């Protein structure tokens, strides 16, 4: 539910021009066929970012705050964000747009909606981006010969601390009591 709300928010803001770079938004428009056999490229869609409750639009606060370009410890807000990416070489505004906080920022200065954050990551992880596009890195769900969904890089990697987090394993098999397996 939360994801959907954010997607709608993004859309109403007009920043979620997700049709760029050949991907369409997650929900097919009403009445549209989910599966078009005549098309050699199936519809693929990227699940929207899963931002925290009440954080978006960032401009709710940032419209009133003057951008502060200094690298510093954040006290008044976002104190929980600890950057553990690229050995501390990155700073917030390498990725977030200083003037339009509702968007990300590419090295060219171009602004980028959160729904396309993979392009940001791809600037430095080009090979991973290519592997993700060809289905080798990341995860696809849906139909192998039809519509599919991709996860954004941020669906698995926290951009501020991108190492994949350990998980609790599900139960192991029972040890065979007799000749069973």
């Amino acid at each position, binding site marked *: 539910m939360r994801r959907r709300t954010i997607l709608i928010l993004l859309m109403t803001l007009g920043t979620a021009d997700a049709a760029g770079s050949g991907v369409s938004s997650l929900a097919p428009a009403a009445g549209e066929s989910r599966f078009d056999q005549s098309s*050699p490229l199936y519809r693929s869609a990227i699940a929207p970012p899963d931002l925290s409750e009440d954080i978006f639009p960032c401009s709710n606060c940032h419209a009133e705050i003057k951008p502060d370009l200094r690298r510093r410890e954040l006290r008044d807000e976002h104190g929980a964000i600890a950057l553990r990416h690229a050995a501390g070489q990155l700073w917030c505004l390498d990725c977030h747009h200083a003037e339009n906080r509702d968007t990300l920022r590419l090295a060219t200065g171009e602004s980028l909606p959160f729904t396309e954050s993979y392009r940001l990551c791809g600037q430095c992880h080009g090979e991973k981006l290519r592997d993700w596009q060809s289905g*080798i890195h990341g995860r696809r769900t849906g139909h*192998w010969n039809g519509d599919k969904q991709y996860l954004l890089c941020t669906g698995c990697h926290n951009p501020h601390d991108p190492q994949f987090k350990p*998980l*609790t*394993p599900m*139960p*192991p098999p029972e040890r065979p009591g007799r000749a069973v397996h």
Partner: protein
Amino acid sequence: MADKRRSSRPGVNLARRKALKSLATGIGVMALPAPQVSASVWAAFFQKHFRELSRDDLERVLARLEKTCQEEYGRSVTVKATPPLDGVRFGYGLDLSRCIGCRRCVHACVAENNQSRHPQIHWIRVVRLQKDKGIDFDHAEHYYDPPQVPEEGHFYLPVQCQQCDRPACTRACPVQATWVEPDGIVAIDYNWCIGCRYCMAACPYGGRHFNWEKAVIPAGELNPDMHYLGNRPRPVGVVEKCTFCIQRTREQPGRYPACVEACPVGARKFGNLLDPKGEIRQLLEHQRVFVLKQELNTQPKFFYFFAT
């Protein structure tokens, strides 16, 4: 009923009753059902091999299976027999650099494929290996259970039916109850299987599992979308294994196998080997893939790789 067409049926010599007979002479008893059992048990006993069933026979068999299942679990189910798709040969990829051994795939597979909860049957086994020893099954551990994965110094290798092109199992079967379908899925006719387990002995991957007892599946957890050659509940005394989720994948559009969707790290890949743009061909072209026990020349369609 349009989707309930039968599968491929090349002319095979299905000598099951002959084999049963010679077995029976050996043992001295012919294992016929007891005279008082229900008509459906007799019908099942005299059912033809899946690939020899006429269209009408097949419809009757599927209807009978649906009815039996409904009676047993009190839920309405569909048993289909969707045939292979033209121009499709399934392939599977598994990225060992990503796998963290969390077993989400194992349990998703159990739920999707109506595996017995008791006695427990798992079509997927994840083995833990040591990084400094490489792929060396002498140092394999199935029962690891740390609070968190991955563990220092280890990597994980999930194993399931490798869907071989030259399988050892199908050749070991004395009654041809298991064979390779045109889309590459190694199928089993559970109603034809005589439970001799030669296929299990022949399989070098431990991919096959035997129903020693009546499967226990909570009715509420039963997956009602079933395929004759796939996840319909299996009778006692037959062999079962991974079918690439035949009830999901052999559709137009076909869903990814349950294990692919359950994998949190995206290590599992599935697609059509004949589609040059598909992810399986992409990874065959761009990654250094390998198969397990290549020296046996079983030609698996299950490819492992270590992505960089």
